[in-house]
């Protein structure tokens, strides 16, 4: 989807889903349904849409008192009224608490499962990883990647992994001896240092070997996970920006 501009006051109205604060949630939806000509059956459609985004309890309240997240969800409900074939959606989880995010994610997955094409743009890599089957990454206005999420993860090459164990010192020695694996001293700028965590870099088979060796040495493995999520790492690699500059990268487009 296109953006008129990424700076300036134009952002403010864009973040409003076109709701009237003096009307209740239900009145807002029912007005839209009526204007779009849904006829007599629109009451059921509205209740269904409110239920899908989890706003049934507050449907009779004026939108004036709604939080940003509730407005976002009501905006999504308004989009659902039309039973769309294509839904283009910008920053769906903006301003949502975890529960709200789940609601929105569930609605979007359900829609996709019913055959609606959902195009969303987001800077939240976790949203994209959770929802999208295909992603397009834009950097400074150019497409730098387009394809399935699994292919994107492979683009990033070797990843840094964080290893938490019961005996950090022993684990560090074991890791240093594991072939194909390097112990990374610096966790990278912008990340909180954690003396107990061991950061290693290497291919997946080498990690498997590390786990086997750790267990053999009597060290309990508590956590093994990428330091940076794969999508984010791929994004950073593709856009050529270091982790320190993550905040000011362009935009991503998930599909």
């Amino acid at each position, binding site marked *: *989807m296109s953006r*008129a501009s990424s700076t*300036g*006051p*134009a952002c*403010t*109205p*864009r*973040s*409003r*889903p*076109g*709701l*009237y*604060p*003096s*009307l209740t949630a239900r*009145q807002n939806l029912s*007005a*839209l349904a*009526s*204007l*779009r*000509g849904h006829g007599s059956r629109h009451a059921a459609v509205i209740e269904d849409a409110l239920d899908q985004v989890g706003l049934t309890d507050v449907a009779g309240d004026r939108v004036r008192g709604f939080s940003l997240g509730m407005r*976002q969800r009501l*905006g*999504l409900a*308004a*989009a659902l009224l*039309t*039973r*769309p*074939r*294509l*839904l*283009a*959606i*910008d*920053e*769906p989880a*903006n301003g949502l608490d975890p529960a709200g995010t789940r609601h929105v994610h569930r609605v979007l997955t359900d829609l996709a499962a019913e055959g609606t094409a959902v195009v969303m743009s987001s800077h939240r890599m976790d949203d994209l990883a959770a929802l999208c089957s295909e992603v397009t990454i834009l950097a400074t206005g150019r497409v730098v990647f387009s394809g399935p999420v699994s292919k994107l993860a492979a683009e990033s090459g070797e990843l840094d992994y964080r290893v938490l164990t019961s005996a950090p010192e022993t684990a560090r020695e074991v890791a240093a001896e594991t072939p194909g694996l390097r112990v990374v001293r610096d966790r990278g700028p912008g990340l909180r240092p954690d003396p107990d965590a061991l950061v290693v870099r290497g291919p997946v088979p080498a990690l498997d070997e590390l786990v086997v060796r750790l267990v053999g040495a009597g060290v309990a493995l508590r956590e093994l996970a990428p330091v940076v999520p794969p999508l984010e790492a791929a994004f950073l690699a593709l856009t050529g920006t270091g982790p320190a500059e993550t905040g000011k990268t362009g935009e991503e487009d998930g599909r």
Partner: protein
Amino acid sequence: MTTTTASSQAEARPAPISRGYRFELVKLLSQWRIRLLLAVCWIAPAAFVAAVSVQSALPADTVFGRWMHATGWAGSLVVLSFSSTWALPLLTALVAGDVFAVEDRLGTWRHLLVAVRSPRRIFVAKALASLTVILVLLAGLAASSIAGGLAVAGNRPLAGLDGHAIVPADAAATVLLAWLCVLAPTLAFAAVGLLGSVALGRSPMGLLMPALLAFVLQLAQLLPLPVAVRMALPSHAFLAWRGLFTDPAQAGPVLIGLAVTAVWAVAATALAYRLFVRRDFTDVAYDGSGRRVLTAGVLPLAGVAVLTVVVLGAATPADGSGVVRTKVQDSLATSFAHLYRLQTAELHRPAVTEAQLRAAASCDKGGGRVADKGPGNDWRCVVTWRLPGVTSAGSAIYQLDITPDGRYVADGDGPKEVNGYFQVRTPSGDAPNPLWQFDGNIDLLASARKG
């Protein structure tokens, strides 16, 4: 978050106007400001009329104010006078002046356009919805003030602006007609409000347009303008209803007022429509049409004003301020005769008719040095009349304060047995002598009789 959807039903037809209209009404009525206005318009006039009607001091500086004890119909006319000056322009400003701007403030234009799919229909729906609300407000003012007056002062005959008694049934009809007459200028101001709201967007100036226009026109009306210019002002229709309360009714100013305000209403609505359908809705930072307000709003309306002045100047027989000696004399003599009959009845003297009285007035403005025409508070008149069986004519002196809109207050200046201050017994209780002070209205348009 912004969502854009493509509907599976593939309907490209715009939403019906009735649905858009209903939606606009719901939006208007959900605003606390509109609800408050509705409550005030339906309650406050009744409370005001009832409260004033039981007081000893009456608002005598307002037309019909001094009759509020005598009949319930006067209360409604006092409210009408007051509304015409300030309340109606302000009401239209608060309703019509905001009906488009509110979408700018909320940033909802794009969504409304996507839902309705026709800027024309949005305009019509919004204009009709604000018109409806204004009508309900106006109906509230009328109904409430009439109800309050009738409840407290009763359904009694009303003395017109030439002193003639209007029986209750006729008073009811004329009062309703007067309220209908101010509908036209109200619509003209509402149209100006629509124009301001469309043209100035989020800026509060749009909301102020009708009030500002009313203020400027009020100032203009205080000036001794030529009668053609005065009649061409859309606010004159707010005063023209006074002419309905004379016998015969001064229909000329009323009809001209209706025509002028109709032209203003149509012109301002058309300009607002043109600005609206040409607006670029993709610009979310839109903050009014800026210089186009001047070229597409103010200048055309000024053109309408000039055009009506020219047309009226050519069409009306009266020239100058419209206040000339013969008209003042005729009006005062007529009023005196009517009110003399009333006084006679109240003092239980033998009844006389206007024909027997043969009242005549001789007026002079500002002594010998000043020409006897134009408004001012330095008119001095001597009224003479005859009684059956009495050879010598009676005479009484009046000081007249004539305002530029043709209304005057006659103040009795002796002899005090005729037009001094004393209480008389009336069906509604004790009241001041009707000949002491009374209001009159001169038809500015009437051609002056040579005399």
